[in-house]
């Protein structure tokens, strides 16, 4: 800063000295006015040179700013699309996760409730949900596979007996469901009724299969 100031002042002083010298050197007075005018202009230029620099810098800064802004806009334009895409993806993922989570928890609750309420073993409970237009999950289908407990069965054997049943989760529509006997039928009906009441679903949405005890 100080260096720059001394440079500037040196320049002005030297120019003034040269101008006076020139006045002395000039051969006659007819040229004097013109030379004085030009020298005055040069000295004004020297005095104003910092302002010129400032203006040039300002212009550069303005250009820079506009270019940066331009770039910024250009950069921002494409990301917005990307961001939106990402947001959509994330939203979908989240919705799916929520759906899965809800289904799982619902299955758990149904399993527990039926097991405690009807005293049967629930082999499998499957809940299918779907997002409706208002992005709210709706129950589409409830599938329950139960097995009437044999009285002398104990828990350790239960886990063993479950294994062979696992592959049996075939899609079973209500028409196919044909409970083996009247007791099972009434049990299925009761379970359906209970599910209808507790989950606010229609009969068509509930599929119940009752297996014979092993």
């Amino acid at each position, binding site marked *: 800063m100080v260096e720059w100031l001394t*440079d500037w002042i*040196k*320049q002005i*002083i*030297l*120019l003034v000295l*040269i*101008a006076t*010298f*020139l006045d002395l*050197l*000039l*051969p*006659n007075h*007819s*040229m004097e006015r*013109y*030379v004085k*005018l*030009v*020298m005055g*202009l*040069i000295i*004004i*230029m*020297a005095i*104003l*040179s910092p*302002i*010129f620099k400032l*203006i040039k810098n300002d*212009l550069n800064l303005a250009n820079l700013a506009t270019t940066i802004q331009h770039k910024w806009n250009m950069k921002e334009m494409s990301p917005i699309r990307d961001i939106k895409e990402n947001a959509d993806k994330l939203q979908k993922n989240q919705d799916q996760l929520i759906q899965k989570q809800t289904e799982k928890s619902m299955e758990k609750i149904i399993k527990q409730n039926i097991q405690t309420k009807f005293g049967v073993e629930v082999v499998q409970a499957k809940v299918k949900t779907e997002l409706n237009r208002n992005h709210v999950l709706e129950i589409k289908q409830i599938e329950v596979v139960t097995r009437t407990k044999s009285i002398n069965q104990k828990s350790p054997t239960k886990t063993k007996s479950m294994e062979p049943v696992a592959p049996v989760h075939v899609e079973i529509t209500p028409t196919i469901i044909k409970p083996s006997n009247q007791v099972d039928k009434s049990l299925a009906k009761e379970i359906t009724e209970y599910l209808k009441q507790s989950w606010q679903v229609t009969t068509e949405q509930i599929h119940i299969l009752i297996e014979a005890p092993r």
Partner: protein
Amino acid sequence: MEIIQVVGIGIIATFLVLVIKEQKPVFAFLLATFTGIVIFIALAGKIAEVIRVLEHLATQARVNNLFFETILKIVGIAYIAEFGAQVTRDAGQGSIASKIELAGKLLIMVMAIPIITVIIETVIQILPA
């Protein structure tokens, strides 16, 4: 000591011109012009020294090159125009001398044009937001 040489040449030339002027005025004029040129060239070296010193100072003080060149050109134009004008005036051609001076003035003003344009441009840049 150079001033004595210059003055000596000048006085001798003046005597010779006075002697010749009666017989051959044209030669008298030629002699006067030649003497003037010789003196001018003899002094050109000194002017060069002065300019060199100024140039050195200017580069040391980091004076803008454009300014310094313009100043030197103005000095040169002034000197040459002055010399030509005086020679022609000695020959009794006052009108040509004034034309030469006019040319010199014009060229000096032309020198100022780049500086004036820069100043005007700056003022115009400053004024509108």
